[in-house]
C-alpha cells in the first residue's frame, strides 16, 4: 500500500484522500462531544438534567459517597450538587479576567505607543515568554512561594483561629488562585489587543494628533475606542482559557469543595475553593466508580459547552472590526 501511495496521485484521488483526512479531524471533534455527553448521561438524568448545577450539601461528601458505592450504584448514588465548584470557577475566572483586562489594556497601550524602542525590545519577548511558560510551573511557584508567603505573613493567627472549625487557612485560596490565573491569561489578552491597536489605520491617529490631541488622548479616544471589539474578544478568549485551567489551580486554590463566604469579609480572599476543572483533575483516581466517572464527565460537558459558547462569542465580537476591513 505504501508503494501505491508513492505513485503520483491524480487530482481525484487527492481530493478523496486529503478530504478523508480532513473529515477525520472533524469526526474526532464530533466524537468528543458525543462521547462526553454519553458518559455524562447518568448523572444528568439522575439529577434532573440541570439541578446538579445547584447547591445542596457538601460536594466533597457527595463525591466521597459515590466512591463508596462501588461498581453498580443505584440511581440515588448519582446525587450531585456541584454549585460550590461552579462558584469557585466563576469567582476565579471573573476576577482574573476583569483585573487582567485592565492590566492588559494599559500594557498594550504601553507597548504600542509609549515604550521607547529599547524597552519595547524587552517587554515584547517578556510577554511571549510568559505565554510559553507551562501552567504547572505557575502552579509550582504558587504553591511553593506565594501560598507560604500568604499563609505565614498575610494571614494572622487570629484569622486562622476564627474559621478553624470550618476550614484551614494555609495560604492557598482565592487570593493566590486569582493572582496565578491573572498572570496566566494576561499574555493572551495583550497579544490580541496589541494586534488590534496596530491594525488601526494611522490616518486616524494622525488626524487626532493634527487636531491637538496629545499622545494619550489620541490613542485612548481613537485607537482603543475603535479596538473595543477586539478587547471584548480578548476578554472572551481569556475567559475560555481561565475556565479550563485545571492543573495550576488545583495546586494553588486549596482543593476543598468549599464556597468562600463573602460575609466573612477580608477572610474571604484567604478561603480555599476548588474550580470545576481542578476538581476533575483531583478526582481522576476515583474514576473507577461509575458514579464518579459520570460526574466527572458531566463537569467535562459543562466545560466543553462553555468554552464552545465563548469561542463563538469571541468570533462574533470581532466581526464589527472585520467588517471595517481591519485584519484582526
Amino acid at each position, binding site marked *: 500500500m505504501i508503494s501505491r501511495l508513492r505513485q*503520483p*496521485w*491524480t*487530482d481525484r*484521488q*487527492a481530493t478523496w484522500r*486529503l*478530504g478523508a*483526512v*480532513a*473529515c477525520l*479531524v*472533524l469526526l*474526532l*471533534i464530533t*466524537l*468528543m462531544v458525543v*462521547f*462526553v455527553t454519553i458518559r455524562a448521561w447518568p448523572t444528568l438524568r439522575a439529577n434532573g438534567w440541570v439541578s446538579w448545577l445547584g447547591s445542596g450539601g457538601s460536594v466533597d461528601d457527595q463525591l466521597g459517597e459515590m466512591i463508596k458505592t462501588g461498581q453498580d450504584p443505584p440511581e440515588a448514588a448519582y446525587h450531585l450538587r456541584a454549585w460550590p465548584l461552579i462558584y469557585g470557577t466563576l469567582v476565579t475566572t471573573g476576577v482574573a479576567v476583569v483585573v487582567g483586562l485592565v*492590566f492588559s489594556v*494599559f*500594557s498594550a497601550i*504601553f507597548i504600542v505607543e*509609549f*515604550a521607547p524602542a529599547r524597552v519595547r525590545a524587552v*517587554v515584547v*519577548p*517578556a*510577554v511571549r*515568554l510568559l505565554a*510559553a*511558560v*507551562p501552567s*504547572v*510551573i505557575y*502552579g*509550582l*511557584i504558587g*504553591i*511553593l*512561594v506565594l501560598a507560604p508567603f500568604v499563609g505565614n505573613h498575610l494571614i494572622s493567627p487570629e484569622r486562622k483561629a476564627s474559621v478553624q472549625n470550618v476550614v484551614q487557612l494555609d495560604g492557598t485560596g482565592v487570593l493566590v488562585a486569582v493572582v496565578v490565573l491573572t498572570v496566566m491569561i494576561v499574555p493572551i489578552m*495583550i497579544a490580541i489587543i496589541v494586534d488590534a491597536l496596530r491594525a488601526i489605520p494611522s490616518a486616524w491617529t494622525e488626524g487626532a494628533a493634527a487636531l491637538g490631541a*496629545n*499622545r*494619550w*488622548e489620541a490613542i*485612548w479616544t481613537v485607537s482603543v475606542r475603535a479596538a473595543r471589539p477586539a478587547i471584548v474578544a480578548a476578554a472572551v478568549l481569556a475567559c475560555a482559557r481561565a475556565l*479550563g*485551567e485545571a*492543573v495550576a489551580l488545583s495546586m494553588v486554590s486549596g*482543593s476543598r469543595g468549599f464556597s468562600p463566604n463573602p460575609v466573612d469579609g477580608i477572610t474571604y480572599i484567604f478561603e480555599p475553593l476548588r474550580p470545576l*476543572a481542578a476538581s*476533575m*483533575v483531583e478526582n481522576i483516581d476515583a474514576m473507577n466508580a461509575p458514579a464518579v466517572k459520570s460526574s*466527572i464527565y458531566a463537569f467535562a460537558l459543562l*466545560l*466543553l459547552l462553555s*468554552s*464552545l459558547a465563548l*469561542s463563538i462569542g469571541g468570533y462574533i465580537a470581532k466581526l464589527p472590526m472585520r467588517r471595517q476591513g481591519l485584519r484582526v
Partner: protein
Amino acid sequence: MAATVGAPPPLPPVHPPEPLRPAPRGDSLRSWKWSHRLAFATCWACGLALCAVTAAIVVYMGVRGLQYLNFELLFSRPQPGLAQHTTGGILDPVIGTIVLTLIGIALAVPLAVAAAIWVVEYGRPAPLARAIESGIEVVAGTPDIVIAIFGLAIFQLPLFAPLSFTASGGGVFGRSFLAAGSMMSLIALPLVFGATREALMSIPAATREASWALGKTKICTIREILLPQIRRPIGTGAVLGMGRIVGDTAVVVVLLGATLQIERQGDVPILGDLRGTGSTLTSYVFNASPAGEGNAPQKAYAAAFVLLLIVLFLNFAVDVAGRRKEAGRA
C-alpha cells in the same frame, strides 16, 4: 540654490544662528491634564510590572533549579520509595517527555498538513471546509482537561485494548504512552494547521496558476512546488506545537498512568514501553509538589527547571527562524 522670484526679503538672521536640530519629539508631559498623566504613569507601571514578573519567574526558577539540579539527577532513574528527596533522578520523566512529544507531533503534523492542504487548495463543498476550520478552532479552544477526559473515554473502549493494558476484570486501563500521545496530537493540531494554512494562503495565486498552465495537476503542484515553500512554516508550527505538548500536564496526568518509572506492558521492547505507563516532566513536577505526593520540592524545582529550559529553547528556535525569514525577505 535658485533665487526665488517674488518672495519678500528674508527676515534679518537670528543671532546666534540656530544649529541644525532634530525636531522635538512629541509633546511634553507638563501640558497634560493630571488624569492623562496618571494614565501615562499607569501604562509605564504595567509595562515595567510585566518585565518584573517575567524576570522574577525566570530568575527564581533558575536559582532554584541550579541549586538542585546536577548531572546525577538528570541521568538516573527515579526510585520509588518513601524518602523521595534523597533517592533517584528524573531520567524517566525526561524520556517520557521526549517520547510523548515525538508521538504527538508525528501524529499531528500529517493530519494537520493534509487537512490544511485540503481546506485551502480543494475545499469543496465549501460548508464542509468551513465546518472543518471551525472544528479545529473548537479544539484549539477546548480545555486540555476535557481533551484528556475524552481520550480516556475513547481508549477505555475495548476496541483500543491493544494500545494499553487490560486488567484482569476485563476493564481496559486506557492509559499509556500511545493513548496520551494520540491526545497530545489534538493539542498540537490547531497550531500546525494554522501555520500551514497561513503559509499556503500567503503564496500568491500566480504561482499555482503558472504551474497549472504548464499542465501539472493540482496535487502535483502541491507536492512539488507548494510543499517545499511551506516547509519552514510547517516546521515553525510543529515547534510551537511541541512547545505546547511539552508544557501540557492535564493530558499526562489523566492518560499516562502516573508511574514513576516507565513500566513496560508485555514483552515486546519498544512497543511494550509505548503501551505502558510512565511519567513526564510535567506530571513529575505535579506529583513531587505539595499538591501531589509532595515531599520532594527539591526534585520538583529541578524537574521544573529542565522543563522551562526545554520550553524556552523551543520558543527561542521559533523566534530565530522567524527572524531569519524576515532577514531573508528583506
